[in-house]
């Protein structure tokens, strides 16, 4: 009896140590966020007091108004949302179509084309940038949403991911549908695609995150301020308002809150989606 209770005690102590370590790590992880939010409500004077105050003496909502005055956040939001939504929807449609075909249909040349697509994954993204930029320039598309969206509609990674999910569906299902007289499109659209929802969720999340946060491509193709995304717009802020940190922090909060709110709501899906891309990829 004594041994069991001491064992239990040891387990409990272990658990406390684990929690302490995890809490310490979590604090280190979120300090920059907390400090950003707190600073965004301070006056310029208060933000530079030594020693620093933790909570703002008086909430300065004015910083947010000032941030919105210095940069067209409305346009940034619009561009980013349109860019993110179009790319995500495009990838879901095109990658599931191609993923299904590569996973479930046998046709001549399939393996060769698939290897070609996989080879795209091996190449660092910078290799494509100059030619993609030149295409957009030639088509007169610089500084447009189209330029932002177009190359990202097609994804080797997404095709591979969706193929893995379609491959996981049992063959019997397909054969039963075929006996009922379904053609490939019906099997793809009505029967299999509803079954790969976790895959679609994973793809949607990665595409969303990627677009919302991506920097180099938006920076290159859209240089006029009213066609910029939040990410590119924010990068101009760091040069302009190097000194007024509360306003800069307010601007940063404006840029990150939508993704963080989305993440808080779909936390489980985000995490599972990312985990599944890791194990399937």
């Amino acid at each position, binding site marked *: 009896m004594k041994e069991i209770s001491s064992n239990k005690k040891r387990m409990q102590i272990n*658990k406390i140590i*684990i*929690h302490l*370590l*995890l809490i310490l790590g*979590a604090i280190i*992880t979120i*300090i920059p966020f907390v*400090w*950003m939010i707190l600073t965004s409500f301070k006056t310029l004077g208060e*933000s530079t007091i*030594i020693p*620093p105050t933790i909570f703002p003496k008086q909430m300065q909502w004015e910083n947010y108004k000032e941030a919105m005055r210095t940069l067209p956040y409305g346009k940034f939001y619009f561009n980013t949302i349109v860019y993110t939504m179009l790319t995500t929807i495009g990838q879901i449609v*095109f*990658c599931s*179509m*191609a993923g299904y075909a590569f996973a479930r*249909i046998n*046709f*001549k040349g399939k393996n060769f084309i698939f290897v070609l*697509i996989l*080879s*795209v994954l091996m*190449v*660092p993204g*910078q*290799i*494509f940038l*100059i*030619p*993609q930029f030149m295409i957009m320039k030639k088509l007169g598309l610089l500084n447009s949403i189209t330029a932002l969206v177009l*190359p990202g509609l*097609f994804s080797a990674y997404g*095709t591979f991911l969706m193929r893995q999910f379609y491959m996981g569906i049992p063959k019997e299902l397909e054969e039963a549908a075929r006996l009922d007289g379904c*053609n*490939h499109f019906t099997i*793809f659209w009505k029967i299999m695609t509803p079954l790969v929802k976790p895959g679609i969720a994973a793809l949607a999340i990665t595409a969303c*995150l990627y677009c919302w*946060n991506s*920097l180099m491509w938006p920076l*290159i193709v859209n240089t006029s301020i009213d066609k910029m995304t939040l*990410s590119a717009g*924010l*990068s101009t*802020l760091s040069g302009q308002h*190097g000194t007024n940190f509360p306003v800069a*922090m307010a601007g*940063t909060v404006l*840029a*990150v809150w939508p*993704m963080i709110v989305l*993440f*808080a709501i779909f*936390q*489980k899906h*985000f995490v599972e989606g*990312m*985990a599944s891309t*890791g194990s399937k*990829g």
Partner: protein
Amino acid sequence: MKAITDIKDNQNNKASKASGKRKLNDLFWGYLLILPTVLGLAVFYIAAFFQNLYYSFTNLGAFGKYKWIGMENYINVFSDPKVPQALINTVKFTVISVPISIIISLFIATLLNSKIKGLSLYRTLYFLPAVTMPAAIAMMWKWLYNGQYGLLNQLLAKVGIEGQAWIADPKFAMGALIIVGIWSSLGMKIIYFLAGLQGIPKAYYEAATIDGAGPIRQFFSITLPSLTPTIFFVMITSLIGALQMFDLIFLMISKTSLAVDSTMSIVYLFYKYAFEFQEKGYASAISIVLFMIILVITAIQLRLQKKWVNY
């Protein structure tokens, strides 16, 4: 189009076998469904790759006109002192940040994998940097690192350490960037490791406990060997990611800073030549060199994996 007429021909010919019809049908739907992706990838990625390769042998500049100049860009890449400097910086960032972030995230994931309460809260907190845009991460950390008013220096002052202008000083800038790099990449790795850990059969641990193996012994004898495929995946992806680092340096190190030379990465150098100095031909050559480096490192990794990855 050929497939469609084939199908029609096929339909007219009632004697044809059902399997032949099925094959044509497969061919038609197969190509139709992959068409958008294949076309898009062919134009924007595969053709672009070869276009970039071609540009690397030209003097493509700001105005879109260019002529073939042979190996000149490549000769310049190897004689330009900026390239080895950027390479050294990139390698420094990679070899320091990748192992440290793998070890820390593996440690946190192991802690999270023990039966404890609040798992989803911890997961949320640790994953937060992974959903935050690099532009915002850079802004936050610039403020934390600020030489005069930054929180970091204020905290250091409390324990009697003199603060520095972390990202403006060539001595410290790379270290400061590495810390942000590690901090922002942990969440993703934790998620991958946690998924890997949850795939290890519980029976292994039960058997080990009966044999009297403690938690540390269990970690090295069960957890680590079972996790090698995940470690391999995370290592490959984070190596490639670190070798392509751009966002953080571009956003955190101001262009006039003394620390520019000691932090410039190979991709930043590529960006600078391509879109600031408008020497796109030369930038293409830099990107091809980076591609070669990544290719060699990945090939070595794939070769070495046989020695340590257990599938």
